[in-house]
């Protein structure tokens, strides 16, 4: 070997390896790259991008002869009746349409696969002997899932905005409370709503990550997380379970609409943030407790 870095033969002195604080960020970058270069991630984002386009086109086709949508304001997702007046409402409609299942389902897939997928592929053992460090690896995984929550939400919002602007008029935005604000402020509120929706998904992301540490099968973890989501959404819709519903992670999801009031009605939004924080604290801790002690046998 003619390499300069050849280790001293039979060296007795071996200084402990130095760790630069910045170098440890390499894993986070690598994690983001791996997440967003997966074909599956891109497919999920493509599906999310298609939703607002389809909704926009459907509304456009249905209203092209000046008619109104379906059976009035109560049919279809929230805000859909306002879309023809202002394309910006397609953003709110699309988020309201995808938030119950589509959007969280994609998060469940990515979060469920995060650790279990690496275990199933065997790459987990090589990351751990690299050594990535179990806590650091889990933190990187969680960061990547959170990034996906944001990117997924923004994908819906941006595609809705573009579709809405192309198909419908834009201009002053009439808020739910009746006051009108400029299109610029409307845009700012749309961004705030997208962020609120992304944050709504954080609790589920932590739950999915925990499920992901329980198994060595990525498919099983994804299915379990999505199954949990569906179960919880059903429980959240059964009136007799009113007592437990405030503790279910999707209970305050639709509070993002309160950002469209003037003044903004913060109550539900704050409750949502608190609920997501609680879920994150519980399940991120559980994921850490499980992952930092488990035997990696695959």
């Amino acid at each position: 070997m003619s390499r300069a870095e050849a280790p001293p033969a039979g060296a007795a002195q071996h200084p402990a390896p130095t760790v630069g604080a910045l170098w440890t960020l390499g894993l986070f970058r690598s994690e983001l790259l791996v997440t967003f270069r997966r074909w599956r991630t891109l497919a999920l984002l493509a599906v999310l991008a298609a939703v607002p386009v389809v909704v926009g086109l459907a509304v456009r086709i249905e209203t092209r002869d000046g008619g109104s949508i379906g059976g009035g304001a109560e049919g279809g997702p929230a805000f859909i009746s306002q879309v023809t007046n202002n394309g910006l409402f397609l953003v709110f409609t699309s988020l309201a349409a995808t938030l119950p299942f589509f959007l969280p389902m994609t998060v469940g897939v990515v979060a469920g696969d995060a650790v279990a997928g690496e275990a199933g592929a065997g790459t987990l053992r090589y990351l751990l002997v690299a050594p990535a460090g179990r806590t650091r690896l889990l933190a990187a995984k969680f960061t990547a899932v959170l990034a996906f929550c944001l990117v997924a939400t923004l994908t819906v919002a941006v595609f809705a905005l573009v579709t809405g602007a192309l198909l419908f008029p834009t201009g002053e935005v009439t808020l739910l409370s009746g006051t009108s604000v400029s299109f610029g402020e409307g845009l700012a509120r749309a961004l705030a709503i997208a962020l609120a929706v992304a944050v709504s998904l954080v609790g589920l992301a932590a739950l999915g990550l925990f499920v992901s540490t329980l198994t060595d099968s990525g498919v099983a973890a994804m299915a379990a997380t999505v199954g949990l989501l569906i179960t919880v959404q059903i429980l959240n819709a059964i009136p007799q379970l009113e007592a437990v519903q405030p503790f279910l992670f999707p209970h305050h999801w639709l509070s993002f609409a309160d950002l469209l009031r003037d003044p903004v009605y913060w109550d539900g939004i704050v409750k949502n943030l608190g609920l997501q924080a609680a879920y994150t604290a519980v399940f991120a801790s559980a994921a850490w407790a499980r992952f930092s002690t488990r035997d990696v046998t695959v």
Partner: protein
Amino acid sequence: MSEPTAARDDDSAVISTRGLTKRYRGGQLAVDALDLTVPRGSVFGFLGPNGSGKTTTIRMLLGLIEPTGGTAHVLGAPMPGSVRQVLPRIGALIEGPALYGFLSGRDNLLRYDAADPTADPGTRGARVGRALERVGLSAAAGRKARTYSLGMKQRLGLAAALLQPRELLVLDEPTNGLDPQGMREIRSLVRELSGDGITVFLSSHLLDEIEQVCTHAAVMHRGRLVTQGTVAELSAGARGRLTVTTPDPGDAARVLKEHGVTDLVTDGEEVTGDPPPGDPAALNAALVRSGVRVRAFGLRRVSLEDAFVSLTGEGFDVAG
């Protein structure tokens, strides 16, 4: 799990375990009170049939599995307590390579290198390039790993183990699934690395592989260490047995005995015995001089396999 006060047993030992035990939750005893010592600079063969506890031991040494009893010191530090200090100095190939099929060979190495917090990102590209070159994958570095053949995947796994200068290489069944040419390449790479002063810990269920490359070996059987030592010691008495095939076995046995061959056994037309030191050609000449018709004449080596069978009383391919 770590005892900071526990003195290192032996500074020249790269791996040293005392009573290392792993009982899985189902009650299955995978590794039973293992006392293993791997000297620095050796090429250490870790032998045993599939299911004998080799892989569980290796995973405990690398901090992937927590032992249920005993201690393990690797590069002088207790495991799994010191993974952050110890593992950057170890390259490992565990139970075959595992790759991201949707990434290129080069990107796979970049990812594994990024996982190591001690790896300098400034030299990452250059180190990855050198590792690819070393295993002969430079030309295929841009291809997606899922298109690689098993041999190429194995080599990429080795490249990942060689991203940094290492003191110890742990290679678990490195030639599994390779064709004879691939096996030869791995063996020559192991010899080359050993020549650079790296200790190589090599597990295998192939005895001739261990005999060809290793200086030391340990034999596992049903979770227990049967023996360990230098390969020469293990196949002690490996001077080999003299075997003569002849239509005159009686005369042959007499002549051989006169020339110092001991422990003679005659079986039909075959006469075997332990030859005295010296050139066996002289024995053949003596046989021919005495008018014994020799059909075949040779020394059969006592292999490590014979040693293993005599140690465990079992054939080698029996799962424990």
